[in-house]
């Protein structure tokens, strides 16, 4: 049964991919959706077995790479204590993916390439459980690369569009940069522990060891490994160094954004950190770095989201910001709360993306918020769903987001370290901005008087049934899952935490009440600011046109702090130039070709031509050659003993060949 969870989506995707022309778009849609839904039902059963049922499951399937010490096998790992995150992630990934499949049946019904789309979605749903259930880091890496590949394929779905090509090409290398940190991390693990198997690594992690590398500072080996793994997570989960791919990834269709950027791929980084929690607990430096990175990302993404104009970009930045929350929750050693927030976030973010997709589909693919308005009366159902998702996101009391976001902030405060406090204040300010842009989105899209074109309004329709059902299910999830699951996160699926880092009880009782109220206060103030700026008293907009400072601020936030412009100018251009001019033209087409196939074939052809000219047809040429040859033969055979020490066969061959190897 456990194998079915992982391999059913692969079956669906290969059938839809190879036979999609024969099945047609409806047939491939039915096939893939059925496969992934079965997968999600089975993962519910697996969750029931592992978490409340407390019976672990460890399947060792087949050996994959076994060469002396390096022994990696295919395995399914569903043990309660070490990998509570695994089954939670399985449920999240498969259920959201099945809802997205159902949604895209109707969203992509007008697109002629719908079978290919379903195939790519199922490939994503295959690689993600492969990542999550791996019992060694090599399988995790396979899944990691696989979801990167799937994201490239999906972002790049409308490949005739130049912007989509650029975005997909940006996504792949930025992910690669992360993998450039993950791969050395895994090799470092192997060097240190002589194995890639997770259970062995986690058992050995506590053994003390000396400092290993010093490039002007003492770096413990395990600190280095954890920082490298963190770089991998930064690339995958769109944290501060590598967040540039996330908003451009909105070039893909909206169901893609919902599945990849809400639930699946971007959570792979967080999952990896939570999975390797025994490894991350030991170096406190790495934990501080994680906290800083996560807090900075959440702040940066939140400030960028407040002034975006594209509906999907706002939600994309919101995802970046919440991922920053998850990462810094891991950094303060609360991995189970982080995975809990991951689960909740998947629900309400997928809800937000899918309802945004419903709005976009209804407004005939109009994505800019400035051209929407007053849609609350046109489609009340979608408005209700979006409202529920937004309220959940901002941490409205007793909805889903409240149970995870506010807990994270309290824990950050209770950590009593500099990094914890930094994270707390940045996180709280992010709450303010989150609520501001969520409400701005709601106001500009649904509540203000209409700014849209007549052709859109006249043709708009509310969500059809296959799009409405996933929205309803996700809305139920984003309302109630937080309350229902808030207990199971604390004790049952606990990843390993060092006793000195455990602060759950402290935060529940020892934090002053004002700390617990700050997030709510901030989100209310954000909402009221949004209300004041957007529907009421909107003369603030004029300030952007009249004052230079406001104009520059607007550009600064709109263009994502000019981060990718700086990155483009300094790094990307020089790398591209190196890649094209040096390694492609000079080396690949140049030196390697000349020394390799092309040069050799050319030389020998010319040599053959030259030699064939010896056959001139004149007898006296042949007689001369015979005379010359016999003279040389007699000379060399008599004088071989004295000459042989000076004649080297190889050099004479090269001399002879280079006589004919003239200019090309």
């Amino acid at each position, binding site marked *: 049964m456990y194998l079915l969870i992982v391999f059913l989506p692969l079956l669906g995707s290969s059938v839809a991919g190879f036979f999609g022309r024969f099945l047609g778009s409806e047939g491939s849609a039915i096939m893939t959706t059925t496969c992934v839904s079965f997968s999600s039902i089975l993962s519910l059963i697996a969750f029931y077995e592992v*978490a*409340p049922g*407390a019976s672990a499951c460890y399947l060792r399937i087949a050996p994959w790479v076994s060469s002396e010490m390096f022994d990696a096998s295919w395995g399914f790992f569903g043990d309660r*204590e070490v990998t509570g995150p695994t089954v939670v992630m399985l449920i999240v990934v498969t259920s959201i993916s099945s809802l997205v499949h159902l949604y895209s049946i109707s969203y992509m019904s007008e697109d002629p390439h719908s079978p290919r789309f379903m195939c790519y979605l199922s490939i994503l749903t295959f690689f993600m459980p492969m990542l999550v259930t791996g019992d060694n880091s090599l399988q995790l890496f396979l899944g990691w690369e696989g979801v990167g590949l799937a994201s490239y394929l999906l972002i790049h779905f409308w490949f005739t569009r130049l912007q989509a090509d650029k975005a997909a090409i940006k996504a792949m290398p930025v992910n690669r940069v992360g993998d450039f940190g993950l791969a050395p991390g895994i090799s470092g693990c192997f060097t240190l522990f002589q194995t890639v198997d997770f259970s062995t690594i986690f058992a050995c992690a506590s053994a003390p060891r000396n400092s290993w590398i010093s490039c002007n500072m003492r770096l413990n080996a395990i600190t280095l490994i954890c920082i490298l793994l963190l770089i991998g997570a930064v690339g995958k989960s769109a944290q501060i160094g590598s967040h540039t791919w996330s908003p451009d990834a909105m070039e893909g269709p909206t169901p893609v954004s919902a599945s990849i950027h809400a639930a699946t791929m971007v959570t792979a980084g967080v999952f990896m950190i939570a999975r390797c929690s025994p490894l991350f607990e030991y170096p406190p430096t790495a934990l501080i770095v994680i906290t800083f990175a996560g807090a900075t990302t959440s702040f940066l993404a939140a400030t960028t989201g407040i002034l975006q104009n594209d509906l999907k970009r706002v939600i994309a930045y919101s995802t970046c910001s919440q991922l920053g929350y998850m990462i810094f929750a891991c950094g303060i050693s609360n991995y189970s709360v982080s995975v809990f927030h991951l689960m909740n976030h998947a629900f309400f973010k997928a809800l937000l993306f899918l309802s945004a997709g419903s709005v976009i589909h209804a407004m005939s693919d109009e994505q800019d918020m400035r051209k929407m308005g007053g849609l609350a009366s046109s489609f009340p159902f979608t408005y209700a769903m979006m409202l529920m998702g937004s309220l959940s996101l901002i941490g409205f009391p007793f909805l889903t987001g409240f149970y995870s976001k506010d807990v994270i902030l309290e824990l950050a405060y209770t950590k009593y370290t500099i990094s914890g406090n930094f994270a707390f204040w940045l996180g709280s300010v992010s709450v303010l901005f989150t609520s501001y842009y969520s409400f701005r989105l709601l106001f500009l899209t649904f509540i203000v008087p209409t700014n849209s074109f007549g052709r859109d309004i006249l043709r708009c329709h509310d969500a059809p049934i296959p799009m409405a059902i996933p929205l309803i299910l996700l809305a139920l999830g984003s309302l109630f899952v937080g*309350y*229902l*699951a*808030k*207990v*199971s996160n604390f*004790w*049952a699926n*606990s990843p*390993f*935490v*060092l*006793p000195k*880092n*455990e602060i759950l*009880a*402290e935060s*529940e*009782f*020892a934090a002053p009440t004002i700390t617990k109220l700050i997030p709510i206060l901030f989100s209310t103030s954000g909402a009221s600011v949004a209300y004041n700026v957007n529907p009421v008293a909107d003369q603030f907009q004029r300030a952007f046109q009249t004052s230079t400072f406001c104009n520059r601020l607007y550009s600064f936030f709109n263009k994502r702090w000019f981060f990718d412009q700086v990155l483009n100018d300094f790094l990307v251009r020089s790398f591209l130039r190196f890649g094209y001019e040096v390694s492609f033209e000079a080396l690949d087409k140049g030196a390697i070709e000349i020394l390799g196939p092309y040069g050799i074939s050319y030389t020998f052809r010319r040599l053959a031509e030259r030699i064939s000219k010896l056959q001139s047809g004149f007898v006296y040429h042949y007689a001369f050659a015979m005379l010359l040859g016999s003279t040389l033969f007699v000379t060399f055979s008599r004088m071989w003993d004295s000459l042989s020490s000076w004649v080297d066969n190889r050099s004479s061959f090269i001399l002879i060949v280079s006589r004919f190897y003239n200019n090309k």
Partner: protein
Amino acid sequence: MEVEGSSKKMIATQAEMVEAKVPIPYRDQCAHLLIPLNKCRQAELYLPWKCETERHIYEKCEYELVMERMIKMQKIREQEANLKSGKKSPIPLIPNTANAS
């Protein structure tokens, strides 16, 4: 088993805690209340409105432990302040727990 500085005794033995797979940070003086709580939770499928009684008892015990720790911290701070200023305050401003020295 007595624990210094705290009014609570360590009731659950190491063997019991290992048997019940209590996570290491939670193996404190209240662990004997955590074990039945976890069993109840598992039986009730971790629904949040069940197991109220056990949870209340456990949280009360943990609350008292947290308060004890806070009192100890305050005492340490006051002692350090006294050392710095060099005089001793005659009136004990901080209450003592039962077994504290």
